[in-house]
């Protein structure tokens, strides 16, 4: 056994055929996704040149910001080998709670100058709280996170609709948000949107957290081997709960940007982007088996998925076809991840 594995692991250099080497390199390369994105955009620009128009590029750019934030949060949960399906319901719940505080039509703090600040704080608290609930149920009560977050998703999606109905006469959305808050959506300083600044700051924070802090190493350890981590003194439960809390927090940040753009609090916010959030992380090389993920990878994943989405829509494909194709692409990424995992495990 030992000699076989030793010999096999030294194999790729000398004996494998060239195509196999190239395939292996592609499979393990972090920049595969970037290459695919460029090839895809270049190919598509022959059919729909407007994909490269400044307006379209700006549209894509603004679109990916909140998606990127939510995907970064999800990455933390995937890194400890769990899943969070509740991100979109956190957005919905946070969005309507925040809106109900600051709306000028009978909001709790309507017309108060500091209403937006309180609303933002409330959205953040909702996000972190739901994240902590997810984490505690998963790791303390030892339930599959798939089940936990599926049920919190259902619960808070429903609760958001109920909450909206209880706070409005129309029952569908809470509008009339203060202009100061709406600035977050499309406003900016010196041509740089606030949303972009927030995103860059958060991305840098996550990157440093993962690469330069004890917490980041703990996240990796828990994802790779929770038993060994516990014996090495890692507070496994706290780390897992922390990752779910960060996922909730980042969903809340994404919700703030989306709400400001929609200019209303609505319980259907983010309903359709769950697949995009998970897909972007997986395409970006975050392993579903835990322990592996980078900020730059997730960024590339978000770019790729948004380019696919945008390009297909420009081509005039129906929403359902776009959905089917995106689903296929994400499945392919997940299969690639599984193959990588198996290749690694075999050595």
């Amino acid at each position: 056994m030992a000699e076989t594995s030793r010999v096999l692991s030294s194999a790729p250099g000398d004996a494998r055929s060239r195509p196999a080497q190239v395939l292996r390199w592609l499979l393990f390369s972090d920049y595969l996704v970037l290459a695919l994105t460029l090839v895809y955009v270049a190919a598509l620009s022959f059919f729909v040149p407007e994909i490269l128009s400044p307006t379209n590029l700006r549209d894509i750019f603004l679109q990916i910001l909140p998606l990127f934030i939510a995907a970064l949060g999800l990455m933390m949960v995937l890194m400890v080998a769990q899943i969070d399906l509740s991100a979109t319901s956190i957005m919905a719940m946070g969005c309507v709670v925040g809106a109900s505080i600051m709306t000028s039509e009978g909001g709790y703090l309507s017309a108060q100058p500091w209403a937006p600040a309180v609303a933002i704080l409330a959205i953040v608290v909702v996000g972190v709280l739901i994240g902590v609930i997810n984490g505690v149920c998963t790791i303390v009560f030892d339930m599959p996170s798939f089940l936990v977050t599926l049920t919190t998703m259902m619960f808070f999606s429903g609760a958001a609709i109920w909450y909206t109905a209880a706070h409005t006469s129309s029952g569908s959305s809470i509008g009339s948000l203060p202009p100061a808050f709406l600035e977050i959506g499309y406003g900016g300083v010196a041509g740089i949107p606030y949303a972009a600044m927030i995103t860059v700051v958060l991305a840098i924070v996550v990157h440093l957290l993962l690469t330069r802090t004890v917490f980041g190493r703990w996240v990796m350890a828990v994802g790779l081997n929770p038993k060994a981590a516990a014996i090495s003194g890692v507070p496994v439960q706290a780390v897992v709960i922390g990752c779910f809390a960060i996922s909730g927090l980042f969903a809340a940040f994404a919700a703030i940007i989306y709400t400001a753009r929609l200019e209303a609090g609505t319980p259907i916010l983010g309903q359709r982007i769950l697949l995009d959030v998970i897909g972007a992380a997986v395409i970006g090389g975050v392993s579903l088996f835990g322990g592996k993920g980078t900020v730059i990878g997730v960024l590339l994943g978000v770019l790729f998925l948004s380019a696919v989405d945008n390009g297909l829509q420009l081509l005039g494909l129906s929403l359902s076809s776009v959905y089917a194709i995106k689903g296929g692409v994400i499945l392919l990424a997940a299969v690639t991840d599984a193959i990588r995992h198996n290749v690694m495990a075999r050595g």
Partner: protein
Amino acid sequence: MSELLLKISGLNKSFFGVQVLRDVGFELTSGAVLGLVGENGSGKSTTMNILGGVLTRDSGRVELAGVDVAPSNSRDALALGIAFIHQELSLFPNLSVEENIFLDHFPRRMHGLPFIDRRALREQAKKALDLIDLQVAPATPVMRLPQGERQLVEIAKALTRQARLIIFDEPTTSLTARETERLFEIIGRLRAQGIAIIYISHILGDVLRLCDDIVVLRDGRVVGEGPRADFTIERLVTLMVGRSIDRLFPEREPAPGTNSAALSVRKVSQPGVVKDVSFDLRLGEMLGVSGLMGSGRSELARILFGLDPYSEGEIRVGEHTLSPLSPREAMDKGLAFLTEDRRGEGLMMEASIANNIVLPSLVERSSGFMHWLKPAALGQAARDVAERVRVNAKAIDRTAVRTLSGGNQQKVVIAKWLLRAPTIFILDEPTRGIDVGAKYEVYKIINQMVAGGAAILFISSEIEELIGMADRIMVMGRGEVRGFFERTNFDREAIMKAALWD
């Protein structure tokens, strides 16, 4: 009875230009047990995998009862009567004993139809179980059986396929002493029925006791071959490592014995796990813990390190009383714990050597409110300690632990605790599953720690190892301390008796 069953000659095999078998050859008569020994990487597994149809050979002959054979998969091999019982059993725990035995050849109601004849299944299973004297209902799910009985099920499975040759690869690693005895008895019975056995093991005492003939492999060559009477443990070791190790255990200055107690355990109990365990461990002392699997030795280690609770008693480290603990607290008090399950609990197999080594030391080596790390300093610290225990790898920050040999992996586990400079080091089976050369190095590292003033709790199921290393031996059985032996009156039989006595 004793006609020639298996003749291997001139076997060669290379992987990607690296020759791993060179002209390997030996013979085996039916009704005989052949012991195959060698360090990890010596070619034992490759030879057996060729025999079992897992690998194909480059050249050479394998004759089974005078006929040239070349099985190309394990099904082929089984059809030829060669059964391979792997270290990790290939049973399905959720299926019953009988279903496991007949998984690939269920008796059918009618030939060609997919209906299982349940009654025939039960009868045939019963017969097979009788052959090996396993008294369990054939319908019992395998997961309810202890490890030793699972192995017997695997043997029953081989017997129903009319195996003429059964290969055992490290069969006793996860067995208790009693289960091992039973396995040996069964092997004796198989031999009496004319079945040939190839027995691969690191435990040389077992090989000498059980086998009629022994073949020693080193670097893919046969370096020793003959009847058991030709060999002693020392000779086997010399042949295996290719150099003479005068002693299996490195020399060490005996403990001064004047030091204060580093660890005092007083009447620690946990229902069903340990009962009234009391002992003192001094700085600069190595206390061996002997006992069978399930005697409470590993459970005690987990309690001391704060992984499992205890309901009564007191654990003191120096001046501090350790009340219900967490690993973090235990570590802060200077404890370290090498577990018996290296892959499952000791290492992150996919992570680099460096990342594994620094994991327990991160908090102490970080600064500020966010526990900021300095990667360069961490990397240097990991390199230093890896060098100290002589981890054999080029780039420790890029080499995944998964690619290392068992001995090197164990050194990584030791290194990760050494980086914390522990005062009390609990070692649970530190040399399990690693080859003789690596064992010797691990012993040397342990001795250095003791010489440096650390207190060591050395848990092992190999009594020779404890006799060779420890200052004192504490024997455990059924969760209780059965007695202490001082170095001056170490006695293998007395220790064994204390462990077995009920």
